């Protein structure tokens, strides 16, 4: 099969699986997950074949001649709108992590949704499974029960996988946007998967509405790009001449060039999708969905799509930044990224829900990538994108495994506690060793534990680039964020796995089935190993041992557009800082939280930080602020203005007035025309005939002699008349 054909086929199996499950297989759980997993394995296989072939071609050659095929879709006014597939080194590395994480998450979902367990005692669709009672060895006990909407879950995630593949392989911004929106829909459906939970519904709506804000701007950016260039294909738009022209023509607003303005609009799409401040509020609430969904959509793939987009359009941003007379969007991007990285990291410190910590950490890490793009380090951004996808998927799946183990304990003991609250855990390393070790690997990767983990290399690269580019503000912000990252990661690990169990449920937690642990192990291999493809040359001892493959590989993509950065003298300062903050944060986290022995103990930081801790715990009150600024006004607009005033008063008023007018007109016609004239005439006719009859019935006596008398009288009268006239003349 040719590369291009394979690329075309890549997104199709999950779509097919979605259709099959929805239409035919939804009654059978086994058939549903078999088809779904088979489809993503097929796509995975295709991705790996393409990845290996891409490796065979080599970075420079592939960057210059990407795999590309397109066909005409819609005829436009002046040009033909083409859609197609495209694979350059950036696509290749993205495909690599997308394919792996998706397969792992699909396999994991089988275990997570309790396949093979009995049906719940009183489970119903729209609620998470509550557990089933089974009899074993003569006594009853509760075990987890299978998800009531098992097949539906696999249908949704298959559609989601289709959206992600479509986004990655498309050669233009339009099909990218289509994939982007399909994922948005799936995200909505899956966050609200347990739709009978009020909180899940609210979270789904919140996620959908918030990302929609970004998407609208992104669509505007796409439309503007189409108007400005007549094409949306990467190959046409990222042409040096086109870019030059875009960068030198002024946009109508903000003192930006067209290129910069389009870049900014597309970046707002990224802000929404990748949950950057100020549109970050949806991601933590999205943890209402099942954990595989959190791992897949809200950590590994969908939120990465935002960063992928911003790296993809990097030539545009770069071209805009090159022209000094216009305002460049890059500092805005760097600011938002760095700010988000620090901001979300501080919130993560004060959260107790194991998944929420990870959610804020995801926001923070995405901030790193965005900041990296903002300072021009797109290679470092892509590198962190890939490593983050692996270790964050690992962490989410690990947290899912922990929650699953805890739920088992909760069902077993019947304790009424929140199985997601880390204060209720503790000591799980002995109960769930595989989960513990893999979570530790993921956590250390997130914290950037020096040398062995992938997270260290990618984070170090971003810090190094920031330092080398003299973006000191970004550098120190990210360094502090990295310290906090290491701190809250260790806090999480300490609270969850170390120490002694703090609840009965935690004592009875136990390891999850192999369908959940195997994906954890596979992902932990990547969480460690993927870093080694990006060891910088200047690194002491290790540098140069392994080629800096990632730099060569992804760096080649934009060589055509981006002039080679000046050869910077690499300083060891960022390296030392990154090692210091990572180890320091981890140590600090352990020291502060190892003393937590009771589930109801207040957070050790609560007292020293005081009101700041409350502020962090309440996420800087952003939800309340947005509720005040947007949600309540929107409700007010809907309820008071639109419904009560516009609909009830104005529109209904007009309708009622028209109705009353017609009614009155009808009354008038009836009272003054119909009743007196028309009816009166008819009635008079009838009544006249009747009265006439009544008058003359009196002479109809029925007696023959009366008639004769009358006849005689008339004859006499007639004769007299005749006689009178005869004698007169």
């Amino acid at each position, binding site marked *: 099969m040719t590369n291009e054909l394979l690329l075309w086929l890549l997104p199709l199996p999950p779509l097919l699986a979605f259709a099959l499950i929805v239409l035919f297989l939804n009654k059978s759980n086994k058939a549903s997950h078999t088809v779904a997993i088979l489809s993503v394995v097929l796509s995975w296989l295709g991705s790996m074949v393409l990845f290996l072939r891409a490796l065979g071609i080599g970075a420079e050659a592939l960057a210059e001649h990407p795999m590309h095929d397109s066909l005409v879709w819609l005829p436009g006014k002046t040009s033909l709108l083409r859609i197609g597939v495209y694979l350059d080194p950036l696509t290749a590395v993205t495909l690599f992590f997308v394919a792996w994480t998706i397969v792992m998450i699909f396999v994991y979902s089988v275990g997570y949704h309790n396949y093979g367990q009995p049906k719940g005692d009183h489970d119903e669709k729209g609620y998470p499974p509550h557990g089933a009672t089974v009899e074993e060895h003569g006594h009853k006990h509760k075990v987890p029960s299978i998800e009531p909407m098992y097949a539906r879950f696999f249908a949704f995630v298959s559609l989601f996988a289709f959206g992600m593949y479509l986004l990655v392989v498309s050669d233009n911004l339009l099909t990218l946007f289509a994939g982007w929106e399909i994922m948005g829909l799936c995200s909505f459906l899956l966050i609200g998967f347990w739709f009978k939970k009020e909180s899940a519904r609210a979270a789904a709506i919140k996620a959908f509405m918030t990302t929609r804000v970004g998407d609208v701007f992104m669509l505007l950016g796409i439309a503007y790009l189409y108007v400005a260039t007549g094409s949306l294909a990467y190959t046409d738009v990222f042409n040096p001449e086109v870019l030059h022209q875009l960068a030198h023509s002024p946009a109508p607003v903000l003192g930006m060039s067209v290129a910069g303005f389009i870049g900014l609009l597309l970046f707002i799409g990224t802000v929404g999708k990748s949950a950057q401040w100020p549109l970050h509020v949806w991601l933590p609430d999205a943890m209402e969905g099942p954990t595989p969904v959190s791992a897949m959509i809200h950590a590994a793939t969908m939120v990465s799509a935002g960063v992928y987009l911003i790296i993809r359009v990097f030539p545009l941003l770069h071209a805009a930044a090159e022209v000094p007379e216009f305002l460049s969007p890059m500092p805005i991007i760097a600011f938002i990224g760095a700010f988000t990285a620090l901001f979300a990291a501080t919130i993560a410190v004060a959260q107790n829900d194991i998944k929420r910590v990870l959610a804020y950490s995801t926001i923070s890490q995405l901030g790193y990538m965005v900041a990296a793009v903002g300072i021009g380090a797109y290679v470092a951004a892509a590198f962190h994108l890939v490593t983050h996808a692996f270790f964050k998927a690992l962490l989410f799946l690990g947290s899912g495994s922990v929650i699953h183990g805890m739920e088992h304990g909760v069902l077993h003991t019947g304790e009424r506690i929140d199985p997601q609250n880390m204060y209720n855990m503790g000591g799980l390393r002995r109960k769930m060793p595989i989960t513990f070790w893999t979570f530790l690997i993921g956590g250390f990767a997130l914290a950037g534990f020096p040398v062995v983990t992938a997270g260290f290399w990618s984070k170090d690269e971003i810090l190094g680039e920031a330092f080398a580019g003299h973006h000191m503000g970004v550098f120190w912000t990210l360094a502090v964020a990295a310290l906090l990252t290491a701190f809250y990661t260790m806090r999480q690990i300490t609270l969850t796995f170390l120490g002694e169990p703090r609840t009965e449920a935690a004592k009875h937690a136990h390891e999850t089935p192999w369908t959940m642990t195997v994906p954890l192990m596979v992902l932990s291999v990547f969480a460690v190993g993927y870093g080694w493809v990006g060891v910088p040359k200047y690194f002491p001892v290790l540098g140069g041992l392994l080629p800096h493959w990632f730099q060569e590989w992804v760096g080649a993509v934009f060589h055509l557009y981006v002039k080679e950065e000046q050869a910077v003298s690499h300083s060891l300062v960022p390296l030392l800082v990154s090692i210091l903050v990572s180890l320091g944060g981890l140590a600090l986290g352990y020291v502060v939280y190892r003393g937590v022995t009771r589930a109801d103990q207040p957070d050790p930081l609560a007292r020293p930080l005081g009101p700041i801790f409350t502020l962090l715990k309440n996420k800087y009150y952003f939800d309340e602020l947005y509720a005040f600024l947007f949600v309540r006004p929107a409700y007010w607009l809907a309820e008071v203005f639109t419904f009560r005033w516009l609909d009830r008063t104005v529109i209904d008023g007009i309708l009622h007035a028209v109705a009353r007018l017609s009614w009155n007109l009808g009354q008038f016609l009836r009272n003054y025309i119909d009743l007196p004239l028309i009816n009166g005439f008819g009635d008079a006719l009838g009544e006249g005939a009747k009265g006439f009859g009544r008058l*003359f019935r*009196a*002479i*109809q006596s029925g*007696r023959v*002699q009366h008639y004769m008398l009358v006849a005689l009288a008339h004859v006499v009268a007639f004769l007299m008349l005749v006689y009178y006239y005869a004698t007169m003349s």
Partner: protein
Amino acid sequence: MIPLGAYLMVSAALFVIGAFGALARKSAVAILIGLELMFNAALLNAVAFWRYLHPQGFDGTVFAIVILAVAAAEVAVGLALFIAVYRRFGTAEADEIALLRG
């Protein structure tokens, strides 16, 4: 010769007697008899006018015969009707039979 006026007087008297009988008597048969008298008054007029004013033709005698035939037919129909009425209502009093009263 008896003047025409005498005949007319007799005829008129006969008609008035017949009319009175037809109007005043209760019995249906008597009414019929009154009618017969009126017929005969007309007949007498016809014959008298023929004899005095138009003796050459046959018109008067033909009229008389036609009137006789009509009167006979009428009596036959009338009596048959009265018999039917009597059987139906048990009476032949004209006053009592007032089914057509409005």
